[in-house]
């Protein structure tokens, strides 16, 4: 009998976790949407605000829907590793491409074609 009550209590917590996660997700989505539609801030600031809200919602869904941190410890370790790889791929790509853009900015498309046919063999 005691075990049954324990199980019951456990499932109540789980229901609560899904409700809280659902409401927080809806709230953060609407918040980001209304900030963008009503242009409450200049664009540069808005980009960072929307990114911040997306990360908040990521954490909300990880905790309340995917239950990260409960159960197997390897879930957290593999997740941390995936985040590392994702940051290297995304930040690295943007960094390299921006640098390339910056270095070639002074050339017109015609000059760039000429440069590539003379020096890169393209």
């Amino acid at each position: 009998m005691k075990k049954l009550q324990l199980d019951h209590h456990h499932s109540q917590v789980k229901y609560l976790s899904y409700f809280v996660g659902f409401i927080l997700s809806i709230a953060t989505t609407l918040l980001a949407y209304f900030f963008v539609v009503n242009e409450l801030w200049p664009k540069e600031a808005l980009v960072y605000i929307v990114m911040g809200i997306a990360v908040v919602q990521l954490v909300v869904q990880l905790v309340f829907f995917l239950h990260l941190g409960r159960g197997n410890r390897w879930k957290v370790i593999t997740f941390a590793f995936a985040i590392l790889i994702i940051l290297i791929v995304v930040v690295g790509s943007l960094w390299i491409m921006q640098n390339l853009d910056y270095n070639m900015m002074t050339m017109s498309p015609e000059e760039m074609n000429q440069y590539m046919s003379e020096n890169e063999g393209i």
Partner: protein
Amino acid sequence: MTRAEEEVAIHEKKALGFWIYLMTDCVLFATLFATFAVLRNATAGGPGGPELFDLPFVLIETMILLTSSFTIGMALLASLRGLKKQTFVWLFVTFALGVVFLSMELYEFMVLIGEGHGPQQSAFLSAYFTLVATHGIHIAIGLLWMSIVIVRLWRHNFKKTDVNRLALLGLFWHFLDVIWIFIFSFVYLIGGMA
């Protein structure tokens, strides 16, 4: 170890394996996000995000997917408590929401392509279609999987292994919801700013 404990241990191993697959899928999406971020201004003289995206339409899509993520959680909790009828109701609701989401996405693609803004128009649109359609294919596979789980639960009367399958499907569906939140924020909201 008793037979029951053994089964729990096997399921734990499968769940971890599936989780690692999800993490590699995250890396796949990261490469597509990086490509989109690099090519976001490469419109080749064609229209960019602000002219193309219909934000209220995408907000509805987001809400639908978010709700389906919640309902599949409800289905899983109902199945763990042995509430069979409730499980099927929640699963059918989830399936219907998934179909509506996918139809809306296909409609959006058809409108864009119909207006001549297909993936061949610019590097920006190529990256956009690749990223969003990859998510859409995941949703389609998730729906196929969900229909198999529904049939199996019904035919085998909630066998333990089928309930475990539903738990993994739930993980997959929540994961797709997380990916969509990033598509919504980065592609549509940030990419759609004038």
